[in-house]
């Protein structure tokens, strides 16, 4: 009995937790306790799993003891364990955030009590997709997380959420149909859906059928990962959801698509037959996404556009291929999950503090909300790729890997990557200057409450004079803690700290990513772990 045989619990625990949480839906405190408890246990389990495969091991769990390739297998290797741990860590932080928000608002047992069960099911789906070692199980994982996300996106069923939800559901269903078509055709061509078995059998097919299967799967995953031109649904649907829901979606859902693309490109179709196409798509995703971000006035919409834009970097890394590029991609996925989620959490805090996340209505926040400014500033410049943060390290790794014997097209994409980084900084600084730096009275549509509070704080500072210059700051802190429950601030803060930790421990983490990349490119560890059973 190996410790890693417990891997299915990463899926099973949240599913059972969801059932239990739904049963006690009238007792909101118990429900919260169950959800947080289950996530903590899952997190510990996954930390153990990552520790067990940290050195580069691959371990396959065969459900029900069926012989490979007929049974359902789950794969625990560095890549899946890393993704599992980060996704659970982020979901736990967001859950604290949501719980604290609910406590502050005094939530009643009502339709909203489906939040906790749906949240756990979402996490079970994400974990299942990461662990799946056959295409159909991957599809089931996608469906579990999508169905839960439909519920979470339309919580409360307001007109705006229903409108956004409809687009989201239809696009997701179409992508699932395309994925299923890919699975059906793969099965027709090879007679298997087991990924290790496919890795052996797919290269024996003719070029034509291989290319069709390859492109079908990439389109299906591309919609989920929000790769241009399949990304336009995302900025339309994400911003309308409640803040914690948007935060967890932004962190996890697109990355499951990216994870599937990395697996497809490294394991199933390692020849790099469509790499030139992927390079073009990556450049377009980056540039068009960030141009969209600059045009927005709503902070949440702007973040959604930067989200799709930075997926381009990940696709770029996959298209370049090679050990260094894949390692940088994995590192960048971790960075992007944490930073993007913390920024969406900050957006929720801003909305709560100032009544809106639209930059045309805001100002004076640096003076009024010092802690919030710090929570915004660190992940924001991290996203913009300012050294020494993880955003810089990830981008540097990607571009460095790409620049090694690059052809003309790759140089163009490198230029696009640099341009995108610069434009991200521009978008971030514009938001910073308007929401935090300018006076609230100078906003296009000034918010009277903010103007009032800013005047009070200024008065206090003036009254304190040279003897007590901190009086204004003290008042600002009081106003801030009144508006923002401590749980929400600390949950956001913990993710910001996690983002910094990714920078501080970049050495060992990047070495780990390189081991994982070598393992992904080598294939044999994956194939042997599954087919030897």
């Amino acid at each position, binding site marked *: 009995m190996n410790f890693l045989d417990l891997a299915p619990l990463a899926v099973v625990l949240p599913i059972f937790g969801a059932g239990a949480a739904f049963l006690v839906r009238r007792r909101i405190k118990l429900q919260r306790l169950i959800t947080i408890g289950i996530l903590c246990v899952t997190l510990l389990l996954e930390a153990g799993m990552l520790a067990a495969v940290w050195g580069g091991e691959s371990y396959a769990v065969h459900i029900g003891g069926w012989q490979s390739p007929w049974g359902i297998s789950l794969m625990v290797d560095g890549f899946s364990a890393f993704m599992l741990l980060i996704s659970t860590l982020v979901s736990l932080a967001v859950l604290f955030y949501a719980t604290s928000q609910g406590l502050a608002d005094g939530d009643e047992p009502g339709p909203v009590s489906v939040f906790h069960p749906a949240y756990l099911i979402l996490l079970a789906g994400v974990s299942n997709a990461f662990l799946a070692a056959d295409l159909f199980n991957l599809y089931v994982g996608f469906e579990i997380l999508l169905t839960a996300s439909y519920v979470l996106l339309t919580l409360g069923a307001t007109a705006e959420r229903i409108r956004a939800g409809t687009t989201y559901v239809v696009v997701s269903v179409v992508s699932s149909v395309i994925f299923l078509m890919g699975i059906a*055709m793969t099965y027709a061509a090879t007679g298997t859906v087991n990924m290790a078995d496919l890795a052996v059998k797919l290269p024996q097919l003719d070029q034509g059928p291989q290319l069709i299967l390859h492109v079908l799967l990439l389109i299906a995953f591309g919609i989920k990962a929000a790769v241009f031109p399949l990304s336009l649904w995302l900025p339309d649907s994400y911003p309308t959801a409640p803040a914690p829901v948007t935060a967890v979606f932004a962190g996890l859902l697109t990355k499951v698509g990216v994870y599937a693309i990395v697996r497809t490109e490294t394991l199933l179709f390692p020849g790099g037959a469509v790499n030139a196409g992927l390079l073009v798509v990556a450049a377009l995703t980056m540039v068009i996404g960030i141009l969209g971000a600059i045009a927005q006035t709503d902070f949440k919409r702007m973040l959604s556009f930067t989200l799709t834009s930075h997926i381009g970097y990940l696709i770029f890394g996959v298209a370049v291929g090679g050990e260094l590029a894949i390692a940088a991609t994995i590192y960048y996925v971790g960075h992007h999950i944490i930073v993007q989620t913390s920024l969406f959490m900050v957006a929720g805090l801003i909305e709560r503090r100032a009544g809106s996340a639209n930059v045309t209505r805001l100002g004076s926040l640096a003076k009024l909300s010092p802690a919030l400014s710090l929570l915004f500033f660190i992940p924001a410049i991290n996203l913009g790729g300012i050294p020494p943060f993880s955003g810089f390290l990830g981008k540097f790794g990607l571009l460095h890997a790409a620049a090694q014997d690059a052809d003309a097209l790759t140089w163009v994409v490198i230029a696009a990557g640099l341009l995108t980084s610069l434009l991200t900084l521009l978008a971030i600084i514009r938001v910073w200057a308007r929401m935090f730096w300018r006076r609230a009275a100078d906003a296009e549509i000034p918010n009277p409450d903010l103007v009032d509070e800013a005047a009070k704080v200024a008065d206090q500072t003036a009254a304190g004079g040279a003897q007590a210059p901190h009086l204004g700051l003290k008042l600002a802190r009081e106003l801030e803690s009144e508006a923002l429950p401590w749980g929400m601030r600390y949950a956001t803060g913990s993710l910001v700290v996690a983002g910094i930790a990714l920078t501080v421990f970049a050495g060992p983490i990047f070495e780990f990513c390189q081991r994982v990349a070598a393992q992904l490119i080598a294939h044999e560890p994956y194939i042997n772990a599954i087919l030897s059973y």
Partner: protein
Amino acid sequence: MSVNITFLVITGVLLATGFYLVLERTLTRVLLGIMLLGNGVNLLILTAGGRKGAAPLFKPDLPADQYSDPLPQALILTAIVITFAVTAFLLAMIYRSWTLTSADVLADDTEDIKVSQSTAYDEEEDSPVAEDTTEFVDEEGRPIREGEE
């Protein structure tokens, strides 16, 4: 592997009609499209299973190659359940949308329209500013420019 051409043609028709309907703006048509897509793809999986054969229940005297392939049937069963759940959810959403807007079409995104109608001119960044050409001020704080006084 021999393939049942009738199945393939039906699959093609179902998928083509389904994709066409999904592109409509009327929500009930989109729903019908999704149902057709689901059935079309299920038929495709069935076709992928290869030739027909005996039901995949073990009979001692039947050689292995006489059975039909059970795996696609298991996959279809899962896919049917998922399509069923999603269809039910969509139906509820369409009903809710109809209750809210009393229309069966997808509404526009208002924020999107606002962004698309906004001009490139930005009042805060692009408005002409009175340029200070001097850093020196007189006693009342008015700038002292060259050639004045």
